């Protein structure tokens, strides 16, 4: 109907010759009324403050209750008249608190990147089989001890603090990572890669099942205890190693933040803006396996944090800018992990719950509440 179209166009043209066209291009906003990309700094600052606060709470609470004033005193002066308290803080609770912060930050940032790269709200650091790979490594060490002659030696090292376990789990996750990286060179589609990653994870888990089937109940029990997760097994130089790995992983993630932002528009748009998507994919997979692989090795497979924290952070900051989401997710993850650790110790009692159970038990209702309240999970991934 060209005539009708012609008439509409000319009618519009004649109407708009003197009047501002629809959308008011002539209306100019004053400088300070334009939106800013950065979220409120106070939000991020208060997150940081909350982490510091709960860190002190975490140090104070436990089977032996130490008054907060004394905790601050011990941290400040590095000495206290109560030697027992000082030793407890210095050798047990401080490493555990730091581990909680590192683990929470690492898993959250890993999950955030996976969700953006795969454009999937259910993605987490575990989707590419990185956690499963770590578990396989641990299972091999623990379950093989039944046939190995040095079974006693391994048991002597303790369950979660052992270097051997850490080494095995890191090797396991690195192996799975290498397989995934190799496949990702072949597959250009991120969604296909996601499915392949899940499949590789499934294969790994099946291998563990087969191994468990042929193992004695005692060995399975050791392995099961490791899968419950623990923040308490990381001591001294292990903590230093974990910090170095986690901080380099976080640094890699920050470098990728601009590319992750561009990736929000999808691969085709990202390429049209000059982004090398394969480079980004390798950076993100590498960063995530450093973050998730190391934490899983030291603390066991801690679930839930990696999926939930990115969603919490997005709704809190109401942004999708990774330059702010990455540090905020790290803080939010650390905070949630400290809270979970405090709950796991059941303050006032001598019992400790497995951290893996607590993270899901505490976190899931929080996430459901946030999503119901804001309803922007769909907005994030519609």
């Amino acid at each position, binding site marked *: 109907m060209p005539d009708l179209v012609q008439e509409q166009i000319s009618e519009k043209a004649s109407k708009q010759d003197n009047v501002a066209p629809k*959308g008011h*291009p002539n*209306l100019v906003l004053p400088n300070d009324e334009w939106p800013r*990309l950065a979220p409120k700094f106070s939000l991020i600052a208060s997150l940081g403050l909350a982490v510091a606060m709960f860190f002190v709470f975490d140090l104070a609470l436990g089977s032996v209750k130490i008054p907060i004033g004394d905790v601050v005193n011990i941290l400040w002066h590095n000495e206290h008249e109560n030697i027992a308290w000082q030793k407890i803080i210095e050798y047990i609770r401080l490493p555990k608190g730091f581990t909680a912060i590192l683990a929470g930050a690492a898993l959250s940032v890993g999950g955030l990147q996976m969700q953006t790269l795969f454009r999937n709200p259910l993605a987490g650091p575990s989707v590419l089989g990185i956690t499963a790979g770590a578990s396989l490594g641990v299972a091999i060490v623990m379950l093989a001890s039944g046939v190995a002659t040095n079974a006693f030696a391994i048991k002597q090292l303790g369950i979660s603090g052992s270097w051997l376990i850490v080494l095995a789990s890191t090797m396991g996750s690195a192996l799975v990572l290498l397989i995934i990286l190799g496949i990702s060179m072949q597959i250009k589609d991120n969604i296909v890669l996601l499915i392949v990653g899940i499949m590789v994870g499934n294969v790994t888990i099946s291998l563990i099942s087969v191994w468990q089937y042929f193992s004695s109940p005692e060995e399975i029990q050791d392995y099961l205890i490791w899968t419950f997760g623990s923040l308490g097994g990381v001591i001294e130089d292990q903590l230093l190693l974990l910090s170095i790995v986690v901080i380099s992983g976080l640094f890699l993630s920050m470098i990728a933040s601009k590319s992750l932002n561009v990736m*929000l528009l999808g691969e085709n748009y990202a390429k049209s803006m000059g982004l090398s998507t394969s480079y980004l994919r390798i950076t993100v997979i590498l960063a995530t396996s450093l973050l998730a692989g190391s934490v899983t090795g030291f603390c066991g497979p801690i679930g839930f944090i990696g999926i939930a924290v990115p969603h919490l952070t997005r709704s809190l900051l109401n942004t999708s800018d990774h330059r702010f989401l990455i540090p905020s997710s790290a803080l939010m993850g650390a905070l949630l992990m400290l809270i979970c650790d405090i709950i796991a110790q059941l303050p006032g009692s001598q019992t400790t719950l497995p951290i893996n159970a607590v993270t899901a038990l505490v976190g899931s209702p929080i996430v459901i509440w946030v999503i119901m309240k804001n309803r922007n999970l769909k*907005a994030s991934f519609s």
Partner: protein
Amino acid sequence: MITDVLNIKDLTIGYRHKKNAMLFGQNTNGRISEIAKDLNLSLNRGELVCLLGPNGSGKSTLMRTMSGIQSPLSGRVELLGKPLTKLSAKDIALNLSVVLTDRISIGNLSVYALVALGRSPYTGWMGKLSAEDEKIVREAIEITGTMPFLNAHISDLSDGERQKVMIARALAQDTPIILLDEPTAHLDLPNRIEIIRLLRKLTHEKCKSILMSTHELDLALQAADKIWLMQVIKSNEKKYKSDLISGMPEELILNGRFEEAFARHGFKFDRNTGSFQIHYHTKGTFGLIGEGALALWTKRALERMGFKVLKDTAILPRVEINNDLGVDAWRYYSDSEQNETNFLSITELIEAIQANHKISD
């Protein structure tokens, strides 16, 4: 100053199948499917070009090849005098931006943040916007009229609004060339017109070179400086699939190439009205005497009923239009010069004609 910003030289587009790949049950071992061959085209500064063609004629393949997402089978695409294959992804991004049909699936992204992402080829490794970057982003938002939903999330926008935002993002990328893949698809008529007007404005005011693929033939004929018409060749004589003709729309219509192109598919393009004939003449001829809008729309109504309308002919049956008395009036001669009836509305006229022809059927 270079006038042709993008040049296509002896370009053959298509797909190279992987070894041992199967396509539709046939082994396409290393086979090459050519879609269009030996294309020689250029996109000039400040020019709006519409790429027309039926589904599957290779419009998207051509645009993908032009934007460097896909490599050509042979020949080359030159961007400001340099072959696309010799340029880095960033250099291409500085000169050519795209608006795709891909839906943005992640929604926790405000319109402002999305448009600002267009600056990413210019920003440093942390993507911080300079004052200059911000100025360009604001200009892009102002010119596209996306200001009213500046803070809205992209998932809350209508299709038309979303399309304008994506155009704003391409503008923020500040490239001399913009390629748009079906920017008017799924939009209603006012939105389609608004988008075309916006693109027209960008070529005039900002001297952008714009190539858009579209199915909106009438809009393209009116707004484009040049038409690239792709069509599927039916015969199997040639190995490649599509053919491309290009030229000014009026030129293509007047020299009959447009008509010819559509005639091959059994469509009649009427160069007098600039529209396609969609009705078949099943009921014989009808005379119509009169001028102006009244005559035009009466003719349309008669054609819809299946008549071949001959204007200004004293044949029977016939309608004469006059508004001598200041009111629109139709005089209908059904079977003889004496048997005349007068009508004051077109509905009554058409109903009377329908009644007459039902009886005679």
